[in-house]
């Protein structure tokens, strides 16, 4: 059984976007802070820090996780995908392009989390309807776009991918 005492700093090793990373964390270090401050992967954004806004969403062992509501010590040996991995994923080239053309982002603060969710969602629902896309997007707060551009971009990408 792994035990980490209060205040103790331990090494945490995990795979992020297919590469091995390692850094130090206390038991109470949030995964979002670990990614940014220890691994220097600043693409994961931190908004509300209580699991509501969705900005810090990442993929953890095939499941979506709010990295602000996950402890760094929990990801020992885990596989993570963050926006840095999604940004270079060629299968998502057309999705990023569609986001750009449809005005699916403006300031871009929420976008890393939304792309993490969208990539996971489209693996499970390759041919979503608009209601399903809107339901998925309800787990993210975006104060710029009003979401319409995202809905259009995701639907267009899914239609193109299924052709």
């Amino acid at each position, binding site marked *: *059984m*792994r*035990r*980490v*005492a*209060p*205040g103790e700093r331990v090494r945490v090793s995990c795979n992020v976007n297919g590469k091995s990373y390692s850094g130090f964390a*206390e*038991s*109470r270090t*949030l995964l979002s*802070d670990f990614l940014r401050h220890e691994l220097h992967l600043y693409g994961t954004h931190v908004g509300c*820090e*209580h*699991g*509501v806004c*969705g900005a810090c*969403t990442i993929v*953890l062992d095939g*499941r*979506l*996780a*709010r990295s*602000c*509501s*996950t*402890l760094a*010590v*929990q990801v020992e040996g885990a596989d993570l995908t963050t926006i840095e991995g999604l940004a270079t994923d060629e299968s998502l080239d057309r999705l990023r392009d569609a986001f750009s053309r449809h005005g699916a982002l403006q300031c871009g603060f929420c976008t890393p989390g939304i792309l993490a*969710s969208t990539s*996971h*969602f489209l693996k499970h629902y390759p041919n979503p309807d608009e209601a399903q896309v*809107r*339901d*998925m997007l*309800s*787990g*993210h707060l975006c104060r710029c776009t009003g979401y319409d551009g995202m809905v259009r971009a995701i639907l267009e990408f899914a239609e193109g991918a299924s052709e």
Partner: protein
Amino acid sequence: MKPAPFEYCRPETLEEALSLLSEFGDDALVMAGGLSLGALLNMRMVRPEVIVDINGLETLAQIERVENHIRIGALARQADVLVSPDCVAALPLLIAGLHNVGHYQTRSRGTLGGSVAHADPSAETPLCLVTLGGEVELSSLRGVRRMAAREFFEGALTTAREGDEMVTALYWPVLGEGTGIAFEEINERRGDFAIVAAAAWARHDGDVFQCGLGLGGVEDRPVSQVENAEGTTEEIAERLASQLVRDLEPLDDRRASSEYRRHLAFHLGQKVMRHALEGAIR
């Protein structure tokens, strides 16, 4: 918005986890998906000495048929239950409720056991469990006990769980074929905490309907009523909803006054009860 210091423990067996709870009792908190506990830790609304991370206990994620119940392990993720063929076929009310739990993102790691142990008054999983007359399995080094969900929930974030116990499974009664169900809730935003949530089931049995109606978010815990009723669907729905709402003392907060909650609870309760009755195959 950072947690206060605590000791982190990641047991590899249920026995190790229960030993920790036996040693630390109420000073320990169990973490499953972390979707509720993470927020409480970050806001320092809880400051446990020990966090027991049960994500390594894969056996706690099993879903199995046990006689006329489906036993869902405490670590089963909401997203997995939503696509479990057994649950989809036998627990349509739970499935309908789960679609309202948080968001696509939070259901990915969020667990049913965590929601029940957390006991938020507006949570959908506790409401469905109470409405269906389900049970909570509690394990400790002293043994295993099963408790009716109606007795388990004692108030907001308060349950009958003893400090050395862990919620290890939920027992969901299987409704027979032809049972009608309905679930609906009202909230400010999709996926937000329900101001009022209503769940209902109904089964035709000779000249009478066996039916159940539950309400969440109205009082500090889910409430429900089961009855054998005669009459038209409209009559039964109105009678059950008004009976259930009559003696409640609804919560009063920034989102809804007590009076408005009672109004919503009656109309939403009546509506879902009617839909469940209409869905029951004669």
